[in-house]
C-alpha cells in the first residue's frame, strides 16, 4: 500500500518517523536495537546478510542497511535514534552519519554547525507554501479587532 501523503511530507529533507513508518520499519529498528549487545554486534559483523535474515526485512530495507544508506533507512521506517546504533557499531561518530545523510564531508558539516547550523530560510517547504514562522497560523481574531473599533 502506498504511503498516504501527509502535511509534514512538505518539509524538505525530512522523513518524519510516524506511526506508519514505525509499523513499516519495525524490523530495521529492532535490528538496530539488537546491536546494543556485543555478541550480536560480532555476529552481524561476521556475516551481515545472514544476520539480517532474522528480522523479517523487505529486500529494499536489507539493501539499505547493507549499503549503509542512512536516508533510505529513514524513508523505509528506520528511526535515527535506532540507526545511530548501526553507525556506532561501525565505529562512526554521530557527525559522520550526519555528514552522510546531508551529502557533505564531516569537516564541512562540523564547520556548518560551528557557524550556527543550517538556516531554516529556504528549508521550510518543498512546495513553497509554508510561510516563515507560525504567524500565518495565529491570525488576529476578528472579534477582538472589531471590539477595538
Amino acid at each position, binding site marked *: 500500500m502506498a504511503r498516504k501523503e501527509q502535511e*509534514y511530507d512538505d518539509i524538505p529533507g525530512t522523513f518524519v*518517523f510516524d506511526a506508519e513508518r514505525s509499523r513499516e520499519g519495525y524490523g530495521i529498528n529492532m535490528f538496530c536495537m539488537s546491536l546494543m549487545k556485543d555478541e550480536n554486534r560480532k555476529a552481524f559483523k561476521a556475516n551481515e546478510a545472514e544476520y539480517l535474515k532474522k528480522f523479517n526485512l523487505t529486500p529494499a530495507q536489507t539493501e539499505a542497511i547493507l549499503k549503509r544508506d542512512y536516508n533510505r533507512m529513514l524513508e523505509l521506517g528506520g528511526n535515527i535514534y535506532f540507526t545511530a546504533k548501526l553507525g556506532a557499531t561501525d565505529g562512526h561518530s554521530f557527525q559522520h552519519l550526519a555528514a552522510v545523510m546531508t551529502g557533505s564531508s564531516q569537516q564541512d558539516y562540523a564547520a556548518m554547525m560551528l557557524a550556527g547550523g543550517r538556516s531554516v530560510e529556504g528549508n521550510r517547504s518543498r512546495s513553497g507554501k509554508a510561510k516563515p514562522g507560525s504567524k500565518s497560523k495565529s491570525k488576529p481574531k476578528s472579534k477582538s479587532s472589531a471590539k477595538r473599533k
Partner: protein
Amino acid sequence: MAKIIAGVGSSHVPAIGAALDNGRTEEPYWKRVFSGFEKSKQWMRETKPDVAIVVYNDHASAFSVDLIPTFALGCAAEFPPADEGWGPRPVPVVKGHPALAAHIAQSVILDEFDLTIVNKMEVDHGLTVPMNLLFGQPKDAWPCPVIPLAVNVVMYPPPTGHRCYMLGKAIRKAVESYPEDLEMVIFGTGGLSHQISGPRAGLINSKWDKAFLDNLSKDPKKLTRIPHIDYMREAGAEGIEMVMWLIMRGALEDQVDEVYRFYTVPASNTAVGHIILENRRRGAGKAKRPAAKTKRAAARNTSQAVRRGK
C-alpha cells in the same frame, strides 16, 4: 503539603554527557557550553529541592519500538543509568521517590491523564545530562530523589503542547495534595532547535528558540497552540521534543519570575537552551516551616545575583 517551587528547562544533548565523562569540559568548545550552567549549579545548591521531577525522553534505551508509551512515570525506588552503546554513563544510580510517584500517578490518572506506570526502568542521557548540568558530577549519590517522567517524542505524534501543559497542571495539583512538606523542582528537557535526521540535518533556528523562551516565561498559553508541523518545520524534526518543556511550565504558576537564561549554538548538532523559572512567593511567610523559609530566602538572594549578572 508538597509544593513545586521552580522549573528548569535544559537541553539534554548526549555529547554534553560524553564531554563530562571524558574530562573535556575545559576545551574551549565545551567551556562555552558549561560556563552557561555555573550560576545554575549555584542556584540549585541554594534551592536544595527535596525531590525533583525530570521530564525527558528515552532514546531507544529503555524503550525500543516494542512499546511506545506516551507518558511513562517512573515509580521505582531506583533507576540505573542505561548502557547506550559505550557502557553506562559513570553517574550515580538515580534514586526515585516511589511513594510520591505513586501518589502523582493515581492523582493524574483520575484527572484523565492515562499515563503508564514504570516500576523498572533504566535512564539514559535524556535524564542524566540535565542532572549533571544542574547538580554537577557527584560521585556517589545525587543530592535528591528524582521522579522520571518519560515522554514519547521519538515516534510521531508526540502529545500536543497543550496536552503537555495540562499534564503539568495536573502534576502540580497532585503534588499539592501530598501531605508531606516537600519543596520540589521540575525539569523540562530536550531541544532546543535541532534536526539530526535526513538531508536537512543540522537545522538550527535561533529566532524560533528565543521566541520560545520568551513565551515560556511570559505567555506559555501561546506556546500551547503551536501545532506539531510548526515545531518540525521551524525547529527541526527532532526539535519537536520542546513540547516537554510545556509540562514543566504547566506545573508552575501562571506568573513566574525568570531568574536565569542561557543559550548557545551548537553543542554537537543542537542549539542549547536553558532557563530557570521560579514561582512567585506570595504568602511565603504564612505557615512555612522555618527551615524552608531560610532555604527559599537563600535561593532568592542567588536569583537576584543571577539576574544582575545576566
